């Protein structure tokens, strides 16, 4: 039996900044996982991944990552995605400091 589809978000890195970014429902790239579009349909997920991959001059390495609906938007299910949405644990760098938004 095929594995049941689990909800996904589309994530990538910004081409210039390298920062972790997420595809939103209104076709922006956000630095904030909570703003990501939570995709519950497998076919739609593939379409959104293609939408992302087409933007090769803005982003690098788009992929689908597991997520679940939380109170304020999607939340990670795996610790790797939790680190990606936060930044390193040894310094308050990356998303833990204020930085400019990547180009949308």
């Amino acid at each position, binding site marked *: 039996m095929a594995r049941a589809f689990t909800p996904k978000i589309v994530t990538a*890195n910004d*081409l*210039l*900044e*390298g*920062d*972790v970014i997420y595809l939103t429902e209104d076709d922006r790239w956000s630095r904030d996982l909570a703003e990501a579009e939570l995709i519950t349909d497998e076919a739609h997920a593939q379409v959104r991944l293609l939408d992302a991959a087409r933007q*090769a*001059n803005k982003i*690098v*390495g788009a992929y689908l990552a597991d997520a679940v609906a939380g109170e304020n938007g999607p939340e990670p*299910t*795996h*610790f*790797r995605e939790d*680190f*990606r949405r936060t*930044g*390193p*644990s*040894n*310094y308050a*760098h*990356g*998303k833990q400091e204020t930085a400019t938004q990547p180009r949308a």
Partner: protein
Amino acid sequence: MYRYSEFDTAFLAERNKQFRAQVERRIDGSLTEDEFKPFRLMNGLYLQLHAYMLRVAIPYGTLSSAQMRQLALLAEKWDKGYGHFTTRQNIQYNWPKLNDVPDMLDALAEVGMHAIQTSGNTIRNVTADHFAGAAADEIADPRPYAELLRQWSTDHPEFQFMPRKFKIAITGSENDRAVIKAHDIGLQLVERDGVLGARVIVGGGLGRTPMIGKELSDFVAFDDLLAYLEATVSVWNQIGRRDNKYKARIKITVHENGIDTIRAKVNERFLQVRPQFKGADMTLLDEIKTHFAAPAFREGSVASFESAYTNDPVFRSWVDTNIAPHKNADHAIVTISIKKHGATPGDATAEQMRVMADLAEEFAYDELRISHEQNVILPHVHKSDLPAIHAKLKEYELATANIGLISDIIACPGMDYCALATARSIPVAQEIATRFDDLKLEHDIGHLKIKISGCINACGHHHVGHIGILGLDRAGVENYQITLGGDGTETAAIGDRTGPGFAYDEIVPAVERIVNTYLEQRDSPEEEFLQTYRRVGMAPFKAALYPEAQANAA
């Protein structure tokens, strides 16, 4: 110290110009990521978890004060004010922006540095004993030969698309501080009948299939060495496996074919390659050697050192752990610990880099070294200058007296930065160091090397740690496996796994149980951890780590 020739300078300028154009074409959309990625990797630029990462080579770990100051400038101008010294004598910048990288490379070129071949399936930065040229126990300085290897391997047309990456380490001492048996090729300089040459070790490596290197030849004279190495790499380039990247390293080729077969093939190839080397390499080596002439060691009284050693216990403790014997009796080798308790192993701020550069310029004949153990070395210091150096280091949190002790931990960047990592390494290192500092046991425990990797690729050398820690993803949770009895020196050994791994919050207590077992088991304070482990074996450590299993078995 090697000074770039006009050829080196022109070559680097051309490469940097090419890369600048490649970055522009990536940004304007003319290159896809698939097209651009091999170019950026050839120039040391990775994309990691949160940002790009630029890996800059520090060939054979040697830096001048001007180069160290330039590394500080890069950290300040284009990164977040610090750099990370790695287990391969490189420095990594964790936060560069793609747009800025060409400027960073140009700035490096100003001081004769680059990021070429710090990635990709090429011959990587050649590493060397960090005490080279200073150690009391070496027969010759290995760095001129390392520089010759750098020039030979850089852009070598035959070796740009190999089955996998290729790492060479070189030492001039019997006491191996360069982990030569865990490299694709390890070279130990030896002298035979007045002729300088090298013992050649092949097929060592860590990663998912750890192997201790085997002796390919007990002696190859310098005249023949480059041809012999070219023959070795070319045999592997031809028969190494390209079907499976996990089986592509030369250690697998040696393992699958056997060392005798490899030796026969290398000897056969050597006869073909040798006539192409007509002595130009030896002329070049002679020229390179003049760059590495030892400084004129100054003479002077060491009375001020002796008096400080007697009267200042903090200074004494630092000297006892961080100073190694120099070939000149009035001099010493200073290891500056970049492992303050609780700090990230290998990280230095721009300010600290400048302080170390200033000390090198004022007291250490303008030389610095980076060790694979992620510390910084002043290789030549007159002993009378040690008190002043120590005082300055204290002001900048660089005077931690812990070299070779439990808090002098090697740790890879792990999942805090690395896209390949399966678990974090840095916080584990920070917590172990902090814990044993709180216990005030560190100096009593003595010589003990902990090495931590955040994935199976083993950048943190965990297999050769006296205590090795490997972070894995086990069903979506960080889990840490422990190995004991590893050794990265001339008596190299791969550590033995203790058993099931430990959760993130269990790993520090587990290490504490191992250390307590050692303290109970050692027959005297002089018996070091590794000696005790070799004498008593795994059983008492297992009993301490897995009391439930013992109870069930009883």
